[in-house]
């Protein structure tokens, strides 16, 4: 059921990136290091998108998350000087949070994922289609009046609004 070929090796590698990076993000004291772990984790997810035949999404992932959001986080870390002052990176409820997160994971895995899509799950026998839609179809769907043209325009409006709001909030009015 799980043979060792190029795809599965790549999957294991990306899973390690993804999970290891995520663990690094939540455990590192230095926030610049945490951002680098975040980049690693996001890169692993981009690898998943390639394996799932959605290369456009992989490119967007690298471009938007690594090229823009990670840089923005670094700017914010620098602007708030937030890595030098913290003596304690976790709050008082960290143990409770860890238990909740662990329980949530077990619940998701044992309660939902394995019974439905696992080896003997109810949906395990589904045929996986070898035909997939391409980026051209995505482009058509995004501007089709019966599909996603409204969300497409609203997304643009949302980003504009976010930018205006962020400029207003971030700028120093005293200047």
């Amino acid at each position, binding site marked *: *059921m799980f043979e060792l070929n190029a795809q599965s090796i790549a*999957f294991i590698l990306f*899973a390690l990136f*993804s999970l290891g990076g*995520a663990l690094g*993000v*939540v455990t590192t004291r230095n*926030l610049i290091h*945490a*951002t680098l772990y*975040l980049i690693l*984790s*996001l890169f692993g*997810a981009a690898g*998943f*998108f390639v394996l*799932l*035949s*959605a290369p456009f*999404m992989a490119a*967007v*992932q690298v471009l*938007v*998350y690594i090229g*823009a*959001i990670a840089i*923005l*986080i670094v700017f*914010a*870390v620098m602007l*708030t000087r937030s890595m030098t002052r*913290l003596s304690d990176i*976790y*709050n008082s*409820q*960290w143990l409770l*949070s*860890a238990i909740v*997160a662990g329980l*949530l*994971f077990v619940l*998701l895995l044992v309660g939902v994922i394995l019974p439905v*899509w*696992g*080896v003997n799950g109810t949906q395990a026998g589904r045929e996986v289609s070898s*035909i*997939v*839609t391409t980026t051209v179809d*995505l482009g058509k*769907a*995004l501007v089709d009046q019966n*599909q996603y043209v409204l*969300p497409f325009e609203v*997304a643009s409006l*949302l*980003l504009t*609004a*976010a930018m205006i709001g962020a400029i207003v*909030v*971030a700028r120093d009015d005293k200047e």
Partner: protein
Amino acid sequence: MVPLWMFLAVAAGVFCIGAYGVLSRRNAVAILMGVELMLNAVNINLIAFWRYVEPLNMAGQAFAAFVFVIAAAEAAVGLAIIISVYRSRRSVIVEDVDMLKW
């Protein structure tokens, strides 16, 4: 091909780690990074289900695309708020920002 449940398991793992970060970190920027991880886990799920269940329907990819938009807007506004709070209160620790508490 790699079975679907493995993708889902990794996504669930990333989501829970992100949730742990959000719940336990004191620094606001670190909390924001946790939120980004959670959004990213959702994206892995969306694309995995799109590929394995409905590869001919654009909904999965289109939804993932809009999640990107949300993530970008959230990072931009969230970090702007953090910078603004830091300017007025000289702190990015969420417990220090408790004016609305009673």
